[in-house]
C-alpha cells in the first residue's frame, strides 16, 4: 500500500572515474572538471567532481526502478547543492532514499534524498511519476 509518508528502500550507487568518462561520452559534456584532477583543483575544486546531471541520472534510475520503468516520470527536478567528489582509483557512494509526499489520482510525488560521503548533494529533489 502506497500512501503519503511511505518510505522507499534506500539504494546505494557507486561512482568512479570510469563512470564519469562514460557519462561524458553519453552526454557530450566533456568539461575537464569531470576527468582532469589538476584542472579541477586549479579552479578551486577539492578534486574531480561528478557531473551534476550524472547524479541526477542515477537518482532518476532509482525513481524509475521503483515506479516501473523509464517511461513513468512526468516531472523531475533538483538543485545541485554540493558536488560528488570522485578521487582517482576510488568508488564513492551516492546514497538515495525517498518518501511519498503527495498522491493525486495516479500521479505520485516523491521527495528524494541523495548524499555522498555523508554530505547532501541534491536539494529540493522531487519527482512525479505515474505508477
Amino acid at each position, binding site marked *: 500500500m502506497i500512501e503519503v509518508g511511505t518510505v522507499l528502500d534506500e539504494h546505494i550507487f557507486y561512482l568512479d572515474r570510469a563512470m564519469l568518462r562514460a557519462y561524458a561520452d553519453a552526454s557530450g*559534456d566533456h568539461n575537464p572538471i569531470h576527468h582532469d584532477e589538476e584542472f579541477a583543483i586549479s579552479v578551486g575544486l577539492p578534486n574531480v567532481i561528478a557531473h551534476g546531471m550524472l547524479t541526477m541520472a542515477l537518482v532518476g534510475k532509482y525513481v524509475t526502478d521503483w515506479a516501473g520503468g523509464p517511461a513513468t516520470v512526468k516531472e*523531475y527536478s533538483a538543485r545541485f547543492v554540493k558536488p560528488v567528489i570522485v578521487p582517482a582509483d576510488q568508488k564513492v557512494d551516492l546514497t538515495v532514499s525517498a518518501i511519498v509526499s503527495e498522491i493525486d489520482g495516479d500521479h505520485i510525488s516523491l521527495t528524494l534524498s541523495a548524499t555522498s560521503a555523508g554530505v547532501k548533494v541534491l536539494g529540493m529533489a522531487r519527482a512525479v511519476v505515474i505508477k
Partner: protein
Amino acid sequence: MINPDSVGRTFAGADSVSVSQSDIDTFCSVISETNTTVAPPTFSIRISLSQYESILTQPEIGVDWTRLVHGDQKFEIFRPIVAGDVFKCSATIETLRVAAGNEIVSVRSDLHNGSELVVSSWSTLVVRA
C-alpha cells in the same frame, strides 16, 4: 557580462537533433538501465546543454561557457523520448540576475518533434565571477 536585452527572448537552435537507439543505449549503459525501449528521464539534457552552449555563447548574449556551473534542473516530460525522434530545441532566457559577482541565468528549453512538445526543461546556469 550577459547582455540584459536577451532576457525574455527565445532563440531557436540551429540544427535538428536526431535521437538514435545507439544514443539511448549509450546513456542507459552508464546508469545500468536495461530497459532501452525509451530514453531515461534525464536523457534530454544531452540535447539541451549542447543547444544552450551554441546559443548562449553567441556574442550577442555573451555567456562564458568556461566559467559555467549547473545550479539546478527541472524536467517536464510529456512523453518519453524514443529512437527516431527528431528535435528542434529552443532556448528562452527567462531571468538574469547577479549575486556576489556571479551571473545567474535561468533558461528554458522546449524540445519539439514536429509540432509535438515532448520535453520542457529549465536550467539555472551560474557563470562564476
